[in-house]
């Protein structure tokens, strides 16, 4: 049994027919339930639920405050390398894009770490492209050892690993995994991932579970919004998170709802996901998994991020830079995607306080 079996159960599901059958009354009834079924979650993602968006938002807000308080965990991404052997049509780091390829030396990692640490952040997310040649697990492990000196929590957003490799990185100090499936629809996945190991849908789909088995503390999954029908993709993302949470009860599971941003390569979104759609997704997920984390990146604009905040968000990135070594290198390198919210950590903190939220820099630390 893996999440793939769960996926298969809904693969041929007629989403349109289901959405057409959902009534506003049915959505109202779901709002009263303690615990939502998978199809209740799907009903909240339906067009019919848009009529009750404000009511759903009120409930989502109350649930979020109930379970998380008025706190937002702040983290920042650090790009270690942009070498990539994959050809994902939507990604700025794809192998076919003519961009400058580089990877940070351990000294550069340390220099970036110092700049970030000076802002007070204690949670960091490190990223690489997929290149076992240029950024092997041993390289990532060495970077983690450097970063351990500056940060209490290190998450990775890298290519899928074997269970034992996850164990190796966890032993070195990694406690979180972010891995987006990008597209849950297997057929569309095949169309968008033209070459490279990332073509292997199943290997990627089952990676978060391998990390859970290896003893990871937090897992963040997501679909890249804009690649395929967002309602069904949001549904599968929620199911994936719920599947992991049910099987690995001690893991903190969260989702991200990343929307496609402009980037080198210029692949336009296949589907437009409006602000309203994004809101509906966040709200529906909050009701489906009241204790699930929701991470919002700087892909969204400052104005929108401020407004999404009370709806269910639990983690936000700050002071982001999507280019390799972007914080210490003088030149303007090419990032994976363009960020929309370029506020620094100080500005994010003051915005949070203004909205009545407490910024959390350090959520936890392992004692070893």
């Amino acid at each position, binding site marked *: 049994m893996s999440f793939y079996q769960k996926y298969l159960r809904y693969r041929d599901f007629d989403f349109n027919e289901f959405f057409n059958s959902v009534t506003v009354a049915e959505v109202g009834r779901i*709002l*009263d339930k303690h615990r939502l079924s998978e199809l209740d979650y799907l009903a909240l993602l339906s067009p019919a639920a848009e009529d009750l*968006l*404000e009511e759903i938002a009120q409930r989502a807000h109350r649930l979020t405050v109930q379970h998380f308080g008025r706190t937002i965990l702040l983290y920042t991404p650090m790009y270690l390398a942009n070498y990539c052997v994959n050809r994902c049509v939507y990604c700025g780091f794809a192998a076919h894009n003519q961009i400058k390829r580089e990877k940070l030396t351990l000294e550069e990692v340390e220099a970036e770490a110092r700049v970030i640490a000076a802002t007070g952040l204690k949670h960091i997310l490190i990223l690489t492209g997929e290149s076992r040649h240029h950024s092997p697990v041993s390289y990532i492990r060495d970077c983690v050892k450097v970063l351990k000196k500056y940060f209490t929590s290190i998450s990775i957003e890298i290519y899928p690993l074997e269970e034992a490799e996850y164990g190796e990185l966890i032993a070195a100090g990694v406690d979180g995994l972010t891995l987006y499936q990008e597209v849950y629809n297997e057929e569309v996945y095949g169309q968008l991932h033209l070459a490279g190991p990332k073509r292997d849908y199943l290997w990627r789909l089952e990676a978060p579970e391998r990390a859970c088995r290896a003893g990871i503390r937090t897992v963040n999954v997501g679909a890249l919004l804009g690649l395929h029908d967002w309602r069904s993709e949001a549904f599968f993302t929620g199911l994936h998170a719920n599947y992991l949470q*049910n099987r690995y*009860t001690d893991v903190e599971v969260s989702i991200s709802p990343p929307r496609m941003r402009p980037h080198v390569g210029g692949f336009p979104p296949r589907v437009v996901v409006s602000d309203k759609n994004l809101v509906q997704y966040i709200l529906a997920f909050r009701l489906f998994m009241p204790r699930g984390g929701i991470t919002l990146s700087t892909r969204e604009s400052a104005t929108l991020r401020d*407004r999404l905040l*009370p*709806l269910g968000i639990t983690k936000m990135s700050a002071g982001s830079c999507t280019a390799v070594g972007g914080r210490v290198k003088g030149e303007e390198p090419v990032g994976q995607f363009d960020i929309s919210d370029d506020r620094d950590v100080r500005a994010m903190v003051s915005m949070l306080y203004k909205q009545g939220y407490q910024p959390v820099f350090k959520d936890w630390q392992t004692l070893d």
Partner: protein
Amino acid sequence: MKDVFHIGGKELTSRLFLGTGKYSSNQMIPSIMEASGAQVVTVAMRRVDTDFEEENILNHIPAHCVIMPNTSGARNAREAVRIARLARAAGCGDWIKIEVISDNRYLLPDNYETIKATETLAAEGFKVFPYMSPDLMVAKELEKAGAAAVMPLGAPIGSNRGLKTKELIRILIEEISLPIIVDAGIGKPSEAAEAMEMGAAAVLVNTAVATARDPVVMARAFGLAVQAGRAAFLAGPGATRRYASASSPLTGFLRED
């Protein structure tokens, strides 16, 4: 819509399980079964401690009923397993209610020993119905061990105090894919209905019926309550409240511009 209850390899129509303890006379059992519609009855096994003639309770149980012997008297997994094997060898079928109690004050089940007994007996092909204190992790272990259902207590045995553990039982119903059968503590038909409305697969009642002034009428009341609660669960209760429109809408910004 026909609501068939698939459990332990059987198809049942009634979701009320009845215990046979504490009746003034075993002669009453057939009319109790008939009035309630129950199809599953529990019995216990005891050492003969008085050497005078007693009737065999099995002779009073209608032939269409499923007999679920319990392991009451067992203080640990080993004793429970021994009783279960004897009961099966005595021709009582392969259903067994695991009841391991080493606490004589509150008669609360020993979850740890219950898991061990469940593992052993499920591996031997028994349909195992463990009686337990509602605890999510224990229920997951029982599921893994191969239980046919999980039977959390609503309140201590024989207390007639109702669903004191309601929130914990609700969590089991939500999280465990096995049927959840509320056992022990249910004192009134309304409480049985409440458990069924919550989504319990069945309830097991003994003391409340056996000690009623008129057990046959009470058996009937429980039968109706379980049916009503089940129907309500299947119907899906309507929305009980609507949130008043908020003074500061959270989604107002979507209509701006």
